[in-house]
């Protein structure tokens, strides 16, 4: 669960934003372990212990969690849609097939709206992008601590379950789209594409360097904006879930165990006043007990009740806020999946258009 003081809150957030990384540590690297510093004798492929090691691995590392969830969700998409495809018939569709056909029809319509070339790959590409990204974004709606804390029990300490909050994943897909854009631009336009890059805004040979610079920037901006838009939105959404979790869930368990005292000693500023009220109530009951006005049994019961109310209100508040943000986030994840898909189609459509 979350930390009880500002330092561990930061740690909690950082922990949640660290991938499970498998990669190469260079020879001579100093690993800080529980047993002290260990100096590696040769290049070693290993799981990173923490963000610093992951960063030091540089390029030769792979985010195991992102890849696993991404491949898993992609396979889920393929399997589910394959199942529908196998059962596809010309009669009255029902159940899952009906839903799949609805999605396919929706994608088909969106593609037909913005893509006018003849290419058998664009529509399936759009379907894959939309459903896959939607599923990856959907992982955001799982409670932030659920899967990481379950996996922590099995000894896996870092886990980011939303692949689309990993820029590698979103940029990887955007670069895939970029490769297709380049391929089709060359295939359809041939030398026309070179001409477009060199002669476009200013049609004079003297301006070729300027044109080339401007067009290249414009071209590169497409995949990067595509990938970073999805990453930014999902990262921000995930961040808000984590922040809500640190604000509220932090106190819930503590409240049940030790009432306001715990929070008063280590508490966060945001909830201090709330805990102060509970603390005062508990102290008041104890004081009345000392004065002999309240029996000991009643004191224990009342203290427990105040603590439970304190913890419960906080858990409820946190739950409600998580729920509220999740409801709003459903829009975001669908919209982002849709935008990624539509922009992909539009970019490919531009690659197909011969001026």
């Amino acid at each position, binding site marked *: 669960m979350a930390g009880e003081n500002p330092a561990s809150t930061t740690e909690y957030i950082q922990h949640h934003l660290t991938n499970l990384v498998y990669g190469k540590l260079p020879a001579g690297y100093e690993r800080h372990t529980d047993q002290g510093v260990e100096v590696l004798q040769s290049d070693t492929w290993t799981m990173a212990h923490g963000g610093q090691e992951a960063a030091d*691995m540089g390029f030769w590392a792979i985010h195991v969690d992102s890849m696993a969830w991404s491949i898993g969700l*992609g396979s889920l998409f393929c399997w589910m849609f394959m199942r529908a495809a196998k059962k596809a018939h*010309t009669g009255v569709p029902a159940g899952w097939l009906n839903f799949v056909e609805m999605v396919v029809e929706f994608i088909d319509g969106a593609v037909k709206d913005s893509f006018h070339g003849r290419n058998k790959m664009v529509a399936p*590409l759009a379907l*894959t992008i939309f459903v896959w990204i939607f599923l990856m974004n959907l992982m955001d709606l799982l409670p932030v601590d659920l899967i990481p804390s379950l996996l922590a029990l099995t000894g896996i300490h870092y886990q980011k379950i939303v692949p689309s909050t990993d820029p590698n994943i979103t940029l990887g897909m955007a670069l895939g789209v970029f490769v297709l854009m380049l391929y089709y631009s060359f295939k359809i336009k041939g030398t026309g594409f070179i001409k477009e890059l060199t002669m476009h805004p200013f049609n004079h040979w003297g301006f070729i360097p300027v044109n080339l610079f401007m067009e290249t920037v414009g071209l590169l901006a497409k995949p990067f904006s595509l990938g970073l838009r999805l990453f930014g939105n999902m990262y921000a959404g995930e961040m808000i879930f984590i922040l809500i979790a640190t604000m509220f869930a932090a106190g819930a368990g503590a409240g049940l165990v030790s009432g306001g005292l715990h929070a008063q000693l280590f508490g966060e500023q945001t909830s201090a006043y709330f805990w102060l009220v509970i603390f005062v109530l508990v102290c008041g009951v104890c004081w009345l007990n000392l004065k002999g006005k309240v029996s000991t049994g009643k004191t224990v019961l009342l203290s427990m009740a105040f603590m439970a109310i304190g913890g419960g209100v906080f858990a409820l508040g946190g739950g409600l806020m998580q729920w509220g943000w999740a409801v709003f986030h459903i829009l975001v994840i669908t919209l982002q999946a849709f935008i990624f898909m539509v922009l992909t189609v539009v970019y490919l459509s531009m690659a197909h258009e011969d001026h």
Partner: protein
Amino acid sequence: MNINLTLFGQMVTFAFFVWFCMKFVWPVIIEAMEERQKKIADGLDAADRAMRDLELAQNKATDQMKEAKQEAAGIVDQANKRANQIVDEAKTQARAEGDRLKVAAEAEIEQEVNRAKEELRATVAGLALAGAEKVLEASIDEKANRALVDKLAAQL
């Protein structure tokens, strides 16, 4: 947050899933949907056609009904006419028969009258003779008087 091999891992995965979708998912579903679309369109067409056929059949049936009614009316008319004719014929025949019977009866009556007249004449002549005989007793020549009386009787 580091850019690393994951980028290329994702690119390869992406390529694979797109290929898979393009090969095994999209065409199958789209084909089924298009076929169903065609089927539905055909079905609607057939329904339209059937509707038109039905309308035609109804029109035809109405026409036939009208025709049949006309025919029936014609037949009834004809029958009525024929009946009238028959009645007329029967009347004429009856009248003719009546006339014939009347003529026959009249002839018989006349014959009867004539016969009665003859008889009466004979009877009158006899009575007159008998009367005269009584009046005159034997003083009269019967032959001469008979001729006289006969003449008288003929005048009756």
